[in-house]
């Protein structure tokens, strides 16, 4: 996207000013978003982001700037300004670029630039709306969204790296609103992946609409949720947000390097029950959180984080690896050229076990079945996390009872990992967006249904 000679000139300039490492990150991001309301198109928008991020590293200090301009003079000017306080005699020499295109294992077909498929996307959302409304006349509204983007990146650095990649993201969501008198409740179904609109071949709008409506109706009938510490069975798929928040963020070297993670000095130790094995895998074909290369140009990989309860790896970007001594894992990610990269999750999940949902429910006298989860957040320094239950039921005497309203589960990462006692076989993945120091990035969470023996349920009863 920019002339390699310009990138070389900019990097040479940074190194001449004494930078230990210099990087040019070029991004062109094409976006299309459709929003529907029932059977009408509410908003349709599109655009192109383009910019260049310049990163200079002096020892452990990161200098970062960005611009929308591509001319050599402007890029060199930004480097000069960034380095003004740190310039020194050259500490290293630049290497000539050795271009290697990223291997694309995902093979998107109906990409945004070749086939925006606006009419088809609208028709898909309309069909999902009709399916939701067909479930019950209590479905008072639906909101659909379909977002597609095509992110092209080109990366150069002072180690001689020159690579590029194009990522194709697609995601469709239907939210159904159920109403009765003044009461309202919602249900949501989302599908997405690292692929083009060919994803529609694997989607069923009728199933999407029916599922969103089902959740909304369950929540409309829900009663106040009991409170207090109790066992909780957490459903598969997006239930994996528990591991994402409780543990995943704490294994990113962004926190580990600052000793702002409760796990920073626990490598090799047992931090979870033996039924817990967890992975962060950037290589899964066409999954939402996958990448061919990370945003520092390193090929991605499958990283085993926890093996039978033992912590075996952290997630490291380039700088995190330098600061901690842990190996790089192809996890350097960023939202856009406006952010310096940091170690981030990709597709993160607890591997499946052999327990059954019936056995988990049957083992509980009084607890909650959190069939569907919403988002959450964590304080890495203390491990305190929270996440929301979006479809829950009481469990009494080994049986699933009535649905319950809004509840939050809170605990700490170390505590909850020691309380996972059963893991099922019904493994599933779900798409999400994760926010952290380097912005919002697509991530997948996943797990089979699992049981946590003791966690605080924040109900409204």
């Amino acid at each position, binding site marked *: 996207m920019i002339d390699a000679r310009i990138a070389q000139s900019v990097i040479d300039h940074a190194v001449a000013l004494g930078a230990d490492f210099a990087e040019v990150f070029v991004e062109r991001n094409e*976006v299309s978003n*459709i*929003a529907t*309301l029932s059977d*009408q*198109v*509410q*908003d*349709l*928008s*599109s*655009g*192109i982001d*383009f*910019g260049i991020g310049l990163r200079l590293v002096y*020892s452990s*200090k*990161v*200098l*970062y*700037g960005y611009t*929308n301009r591509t001319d050599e003079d402007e890029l060199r000017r930004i480097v000069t*300004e*960034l380095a003004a*306080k740190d310039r020194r005699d050259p500490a290293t020499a630049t290497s000539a670029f050795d271009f290697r295109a990223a291997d694309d294992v995902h093979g998107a077909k109906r990409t945004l630039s070749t086939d925006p498929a606006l009419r088809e996307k609208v028709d898909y959302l309309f069909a999902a709306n009709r399916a939701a409304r067909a479930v019950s006349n209590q479905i*008072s*509204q639906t*909101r659909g969204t379909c977002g597609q983007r095509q992110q092209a990146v080109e990366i150069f650095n002072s180690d001689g790296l020159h690579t590029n990649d194009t990522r194709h993201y697609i995601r469709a969501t239907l939210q159904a*609103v159920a109403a009765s008198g*003044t009461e*309202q*409740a*919602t249900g949501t179904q989302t599908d997405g992946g690292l692929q083009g609109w060919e994803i529609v071949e694997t989607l069923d709008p009728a199933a999407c609409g029916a599922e969103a409506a089902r959740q909304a109706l369950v929540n409309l009938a829900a009663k*106040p*949720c009991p*409170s*207090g510490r109790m066992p909780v069975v957490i459903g598969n798929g997006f239930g994996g947000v528990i591991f994402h928040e409780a543990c995943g963020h704490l294994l990113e070297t962004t926190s580990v390097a*600052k*000793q*702002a993670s409760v796990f920073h000095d626990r490598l090799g130790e047992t931090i979870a029950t033996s039924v817990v094995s967890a992975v962060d895998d950037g290589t899964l074909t066409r999954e939402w959180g996958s990448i061919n290369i990370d945003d520092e140009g390193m090929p991605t990989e499958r990283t085993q984080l926890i093996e039978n309860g033992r912590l075996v790896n952290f997630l490291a970007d380039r700088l995190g690896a330098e600061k901690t001594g842990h190996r790089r894992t192809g996890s350097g990610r960023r939202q856009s050229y*406006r952010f*310096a990269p940091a170690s981030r999750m990709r597709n993160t999940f607890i591997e499946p076990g052999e327990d059954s949902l019936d056995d988990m429910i049957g083992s509980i006298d009084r607890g909650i079945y959190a069939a569907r989860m*919403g*988002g959450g*957040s964590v*304080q890495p*320094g*203390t491990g305190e996390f*929270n*996440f*929301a239950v979006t479809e829950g039921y009481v469990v009494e005497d080994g049986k699933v009872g009535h649905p319950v*309203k*809004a509840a*939050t589960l*809170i605990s700490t990462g170390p505590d909850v990992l020691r309380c996972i006692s059963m893991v099922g076989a019904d493994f599933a993945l779900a798409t999400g967006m994760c926010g952290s120091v380097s912005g919002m990035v697509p991530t997948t969470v996943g797990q089979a249904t699992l049981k946590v023996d003791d966690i*605080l*349920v*924040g*109900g*409204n009863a």
Partner: protein
Amino acid sequence: MADPAIESHARRVLDEVVRAGAHGDLIVHQDASLSLKAHDGDLEEHKVNSTRVYGVRVIKDCRAGIAYSEAADAAALHSMVAQALQNAAFAREDDKEAIADGNGSLVTDDATLCRQDDVTVETKIAAALAMERELAARDKVQNVPYNGVQDVTAERYVFTTAGHTAHSKARLCNAYAYALLKDGDKDVLDGVERTARQFDELDTSVIVEETYARCIALLHGEAVPSRHYDVLFDVECQAALFDAFASVFSGRAARDGISPLRERIGERIGVDGLDIRDAPRRTEGFGYALFDGEGIATATTTLVERGRLVTLAHNSATAGHFGVANTGHAARSPKTPLGVALHQPEIGPGEIRESDLTSGEYLEIVDLAGLHSGTNAVSGDFSLGAAGFLCADGERLRPVRNITVAGNFLDMLTKIVGIGDVQHWNARRSALMARIRFADMPISG
């Protein structure tokens, strides 16, 4: 003073919109920022940025479409207009969404919103380093993982095909520090941030003191038994909770059939003393807005008066839909479609002395976690992680952590025990709040 290059680009874009037989408006956002982060006695990150984004909305045959571009060359701007027109062709017909009439001009006052100072980058770096150094030297402080300063100047332009223009320019400086304290098996990570129009109005020593005092106070917090308590949120938490549910006052959410208040205009939705307003023209607030996302002049809007819902917040389209006055609450960035949002909300002062809100036993909540995930503005339900203090008669008895607070936002408005007689700005000065004591809130511990 408007940037001549931006004005030239606006003319080119809007001329093309008119030539296509459409109406339209163009929003241009540009900012310049400095961000400094300190860690381990050294500068960890030094970030210098400037960006500009153009976003056009076209309305043709009563159909609206938008598109944006971060490039400003002729080809990019032409492509942006073409995309917006293509998008409009798919949109629903809506004869209420229109480009604002009039050809006036609105310009903010730099002397109020964008005063420059001569604080050097070296001074700002020294401030970030000093915050970390001073906090790290305190007893029980393990680490100061997050601290730094920011200085952002943001400009926003609105140009319409009717000839109306609006331009705002504002500067905000920010400093923050978060410390990790440990004592035996107890730890806490917490902090504070402050915002000012000029860097030299930030007192970083206050940030250090308040961060440390907050962490020490919460360090040994334990859960309280699960039951219902009276709750008094601090100003930060109260403003954040109201912000999470601000969309219930949105005319767009009402038009779309999802606001629980859509058919309740004129009805009582809260206790008698509850006044909720949006006051965008308070210049002492940093949510100040001279105009909205359509370039319409703003004014104070009373949303709730003595517990009764007076109006919802509207842009031109939602006002047209309901046949009511536009309240100047259009929300639109270059990249997003026309919405509705409050600018600078406030809870009016009540008649109870603030000191009288703290009689008997109550929970003072000073930290809420999960506001982005544990709230549902369609149902009004919420359940959030929380921390604070168990109090009695104005005295903090003990710190409380690892609890949740739950409820329904609209129910809460009817369970108000008292509203204090003093208004307070939150730290970002984006909301002005009289403190409220809520009765009977479910707490899990």
